[in-house]
């Protein structure tokens, strides 16, 4: 049995952390103290046995593992920046589209809205909604089982000059739904036929996001 302080010393010796002087003193003690020498021998053998385990490597097909990981992440949406929430009208639409799972986050920059504070992700600010008469319609791209969603910003034409809007979307996992597509198409067609509405297509992510919000839009 050796003192804990000596055990600590032996550990530092094993890990090559002793100074030359400390090592010299330890070697002198090892010659004179068989229990200390025996402890060091045991520690060395344990360390050697542990190091030998490095030869016991996992059996892995790295290419296959990589492919499996990428396959797992590919159907996912682009990694989300923030918490995501369903717009209310989509929640209404959801029962129609049982398989659909769409969630979106919209970044909107509205210079008329004060944005001195960063909004809490996932919590819509009602005041901002009323200040920015913007409507958002979400539509899934056709012919894909997943991927980036197309987001259109619908806004009353009279507001167009005064209210520049930049929008982007950070998106989501979703599955296709014919019913939901039809529902969205109807909303689009309805609004495009009205001269009082302009349709905007969101492009890339806003950098930096000066306002993060969600739009709860009632169904038409």
């Amino acid at each position, binding site marked *: 049995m050796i003192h804990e302080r000596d055990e600590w010393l032996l550990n530092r010796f094993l890990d090559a952390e002793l100074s030359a002087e400390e090592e010299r003193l330890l070697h002198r003690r090892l010659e004179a103290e068989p229990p200390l020498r025996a402890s060091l021998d045991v520690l060395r053998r344990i360390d050697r046995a542990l190091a030998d385990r490095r030869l016991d490597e*996992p059996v892995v097909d790295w290419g296959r593992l990589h492919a499996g*990981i990428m396959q797992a992440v590919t159907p996912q949406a682009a990694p989300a920046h923030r918490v995501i929430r369903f717009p209310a009208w989509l929640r209404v639409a959801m029962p129609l589209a049982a398989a659909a799972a769409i969630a979106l986050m919209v970044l909107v920059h509205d210079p008329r809205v004060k944005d001195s504070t960063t909004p809490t992700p996932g919590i819509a600010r009602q005041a901002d909604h009323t200040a920015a008469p913007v409507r958002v319609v979400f539509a899934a791209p056709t012919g894909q089982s997943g991927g980036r969603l197309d987001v259109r910003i619908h806004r009353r034409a009279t507001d167009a000059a005064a209210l520049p809007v930049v929008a982007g979307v950070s998106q989501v996992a979703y599955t296709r739904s014919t019913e939901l597509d039809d529902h969205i198409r109807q909303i689009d067609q309805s609004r495009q036929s009205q001269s009082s509405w302009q349709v905007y297509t969101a492009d890339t992510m806003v950098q930096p996001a000066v306002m993060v919000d969600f739009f709860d839009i009632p169904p038409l």
Partner: protein
Amino acid sequence: MKPVNPPLFTEESAERDAAWVRAALAGDTNAFGRLVEAYQKVAVSTAYRLLNNSDDAQEVVQDAFLKAYQSLGRLQDARRFGAWFLRIVSNLSLNARRARRSAGRALVDGQQGLDGVAEAADPRQATQGPDRRAEGRELQAAIDAALEKLPEKQRMALLLFSVEGWPQKDIAELLECSLETVKWNVFAARKRLREHLGEIIAD
């Protein structure tokens, strides 16, 4: 002296990872693929040391990459992707270990081995490599059992340092603790192993 690997987390890797993380967040899946390439080996090795099973380790790593991908936007500092991701790997590995234990796969209570040390039911036998040499199977089996008894942090610190050859600084980054705490954990783990295995080794 044991071999110590070059540092995992360097300025260079931090810059590289940050660029890939930013690209992945912008929707570039290939950038995430590069992160997978960069970390899959160390991730599987880490999980393997904690789980002793190749299949379980790969499953954990796949889950970890998926979680990382889904949570990438919540990573505060993209430069620290490596430590953050390997923390996910180690946490999932520990969860898997606990689940396996509760399912009775890892340690059979009451089964006594050499020197009164409980023997681990070795779930890796189907997939473990053949090269346990030097000290022999008997000692390795006793070490397995002794390792099972270590507190998780001590076990992880010892395995990453003494088996995987990680620099202690990297282990500190992974465990989110000080370098001194890592040293202490390695020390305490060795001490306990010595107490468990001293007589076997002395024979």
